[in-house]
């Protein structure tokens, strides 16, 4: 059952990343990888909230496996982020490459912390 939840979540999260990436790029022509940045920030916010809720007893471990390990895990990606950064650097676009690393990490961590705090307040309160 646990494996099934993770498989199902992964089968939803990865296509959601692909579709979001296309939608963001279709609206915004840029060398900066806004699509991947967006999914990583949103996924970190949701997983932060889910983890905060789990720790405060406001969510079940099955929901955690489906939405957290499965959907959020597959929606967000480190491999895409790292390859984009490499390509930008190799093309001499050092500023977007450095900005991608700094912004992804800072916004991702900030989003996870925000989701975590808000969920704990809501569940506890």
């Amino acid at each position, binding site marked *: 059952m646990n494996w099934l939840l993770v498989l199902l979540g*992964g089968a939803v999260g990865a296509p959601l990343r692909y579709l979001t990436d296309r939608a963001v*790029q279709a609206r915004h022509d840029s*060398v900066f990888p806004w699509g991947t940045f967006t999914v990583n920030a949103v996924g970190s916010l949701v997983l932060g909230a889910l983890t905060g809720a789990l720790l405060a007893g406001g969510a079940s471990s099955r929901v955690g496996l489906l939405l*957290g390990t499965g959907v959020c895990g597959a929606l967000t990606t*480190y491999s*895409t982020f790292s390859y984009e950064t490499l390509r930008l650097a190799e093309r001499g676009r050092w500023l977007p490459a450095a900005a991608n690393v700094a912004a992804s990490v800072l916004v991702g961590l900030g989003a996870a912390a925000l989701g975590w705090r808000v969920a704990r307040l809501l569940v506890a309160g």
Partner: protein
Amino acid sequence: MTRPVPGAEAIDPDVDLHVPAQAAEPQAPVLAAVAAGGALGAAARYGLALLWPAGAGAFPWATFWTNAAGCALIGVLMVLVGEGGRTAHPLVRPFLGVGVLGGFTTFSTYAVDVVRLLDEGRGGLALGYAGATVAAALAAVTAAARLTRGAVRGRVRAGVRPRAGGPGRGRGR
């Protein structure tokens, strides 16, 4: 509005609308390949986390190695299917790159683990983990891509396949 540019090479390995073939790729088979790959990648990551659980206040080694390995593998894959004019079956990148490797690696678990370590009062460890993952990911993708380019050029020189075009940089090893 992003317009396809003839001859463009992808920066975003998931999908880059500057690449004409990716802008026009048929959505149904691609989404099916991405979903199948994503399920497998997520399950592999879950399996590693079960084998190598991170205790409270401990360095999340399973996620660290998952992300480092996935970054090395995307470096190999994208050189083989997306660079120097080389092409592969149109579902290889969606299945292996977007699906399996994208589903295997995770940014959200990385971010939440840093926050969890901070919450547990392990500020130094949180900072170390945050920095070490970024460094390992970038080193892994860079080394893997260079080694793969070097290996591909070696095969071309040996006459195994015709030159695919695109000057490389460095000899890879």
